């Protein structure tokens, strides 16, 4: 714990910054990112409690019994009786603390890592939602609109961290074909978009007694993250993962080591290096520009060939 305190002190010197101003938070024309200084986190879970409390009005109140699902493969996902679970992501817990036991300067240390949605710069959950229920705001927040989400869970599948979590028995699907299409609503951290819109800090940032998180314009946060990493000889995660995210972690140990130590699984995201999942298909856009030209050239070529033969 002494070492952890030391890390926290070093971190606080490096990232001694005031939180973003209300005006900065309300400015919806630039992407806001958060810097999470892992060295400062003591795992007190004040952020977890604040998140649940502030966002409780957004949580599902499902109708029971749930509609019978067809085919039987479609399983209900019910967390309504397990709302207190806070050691993983659930529809009722959008932020949790991950624990890693790692070697820091030769000493075995437990590091704690607040985990929630990364708020990708180009979020697959938003861009690939088949209905547009997942939305990206201009300030970089991605959130799921519970009013129109059908709970198909595609966002969970395309998210490299599997962040969104499903609650059955709630949402629009109940009014359509509840037994055959949809399965509830997907929930995840919306970085307190409503508070931010009013110039307030997200609950997790405001509640943290250790100032683990800093929020601000993405380019400034990236600079701060690099300064902090340089000062503590640390490592950065989130700057380039999945093409870049708006959640930048700085750790005193390599993320590879953290990733090996943390418990991973459903609702427990890893810290793997993630390539830009949206880029694979996006790279074909150039071929889409060339394709019509190739088609036109082929038709013109055919015309000239036939004209030549005609002569």
């Amino acid at each position, binding site marked *: 714990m002494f070492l952890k305190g030391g890390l926290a002190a070093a971190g606080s010197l490096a990232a001694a910054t005031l939180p973003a101003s209300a005006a900065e938070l309300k400015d919806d024309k630039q992407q806001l990112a958060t810097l999470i200084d892992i060295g400062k986190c003591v795992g007190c879970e004040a952020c977890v409690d604040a998140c649940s409390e502030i966002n409780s009005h957004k949580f599902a109140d499902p109708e029971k019994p749930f509609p019978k699902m067809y085919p039987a493969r479609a399983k209900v996902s019910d967390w309504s009786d397990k709302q207190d679970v806070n050691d993983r992501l659930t529809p009722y817990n959008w932020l949790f603390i991950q624990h890693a036991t790692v070697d820091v300067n030769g000493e075995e240390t437990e590091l704690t890592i607040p985990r929630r949605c990364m708020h990708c710069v180009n979020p697959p959950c938003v861009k690939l939602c088949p209905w547009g229920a997942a*939305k990206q705001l201009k300030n970089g927040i991605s959130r799921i609109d519970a009013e129109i989400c059908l709970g198909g869970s595609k966002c969970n599948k395309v998210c490299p961290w599997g962040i969104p979590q499903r609650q059955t028995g709630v949402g629009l699907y109940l009014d359509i074909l509840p037994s055959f299409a949809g399965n509830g609503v997907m929930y995840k951290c919306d970085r307190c978009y409503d508070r931010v819109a009013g110039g307030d800090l997200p609950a997790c940032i405001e509640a943290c007694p250790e100032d683990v998180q800093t929020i601000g314009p993405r380019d400034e946060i990236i600079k701060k993250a690099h300064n902090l990493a340089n000062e503590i000889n640390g490592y950065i995660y989130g700057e380039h993962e999945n093409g870049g995210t708006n959640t930048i972690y700085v750790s005193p140990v390599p993320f590879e080591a953290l990733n090996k130590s943390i418990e991973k699984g459903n609702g427990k995201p890893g810290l793997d290096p993630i390539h830009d999942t949206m880029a694979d298909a996006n790279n074909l856009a150039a071929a889409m520009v060339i394709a019509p030209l190739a088609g036109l050239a082929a038709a013109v070529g055919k015309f000239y060939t036939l004209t030549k033969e005609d002569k």
Partner: protein
Amino acid sequence: MKELTAGTQGITGNRVIRIIYTVNIFMLVLTGFGQMPIYKRYYMSDIPGFSWLANFLTTRYVHYLVAVLLLALVAYIGMDYLVLKRKDREITATGYVRIALLAGIVFTGILFVIKNFPPYIFSPNFIIFLNLSHLGFVMAFLLVSLFCVVVKKKWTTSR
């Protein structure tokens, strides 16, 4: 110029082009519907050889690939008609309907491709409109195409 119009019975008069077009549309529809979470739920991806349908990133990639082919094909057939066949053949009413619907699919598809680049490009409400209109154009195109196949309506007819 007799040879210039030889074997040009219509937009899909060429057998090879017709096969490519049909396979192309089939793949676009297959991968397009694969953007909705239905294939795994309804066991489609359990069919041997179709497990890839359960992977949204794969179906998206294949959808883009076949869209590239569609764009080339549309440009080729369009230019081929304008340069070689317009003199002898005219587009039918159902042909115009299909062209308009196809244009709607292509246009909304292009907007989709733009949308998928980072970061915020279109508003959330416009993206909802885009999702519904792309699907709407596809459904209308499939229904009209089915009608045309049943009642043997061609894209073009002799002038």
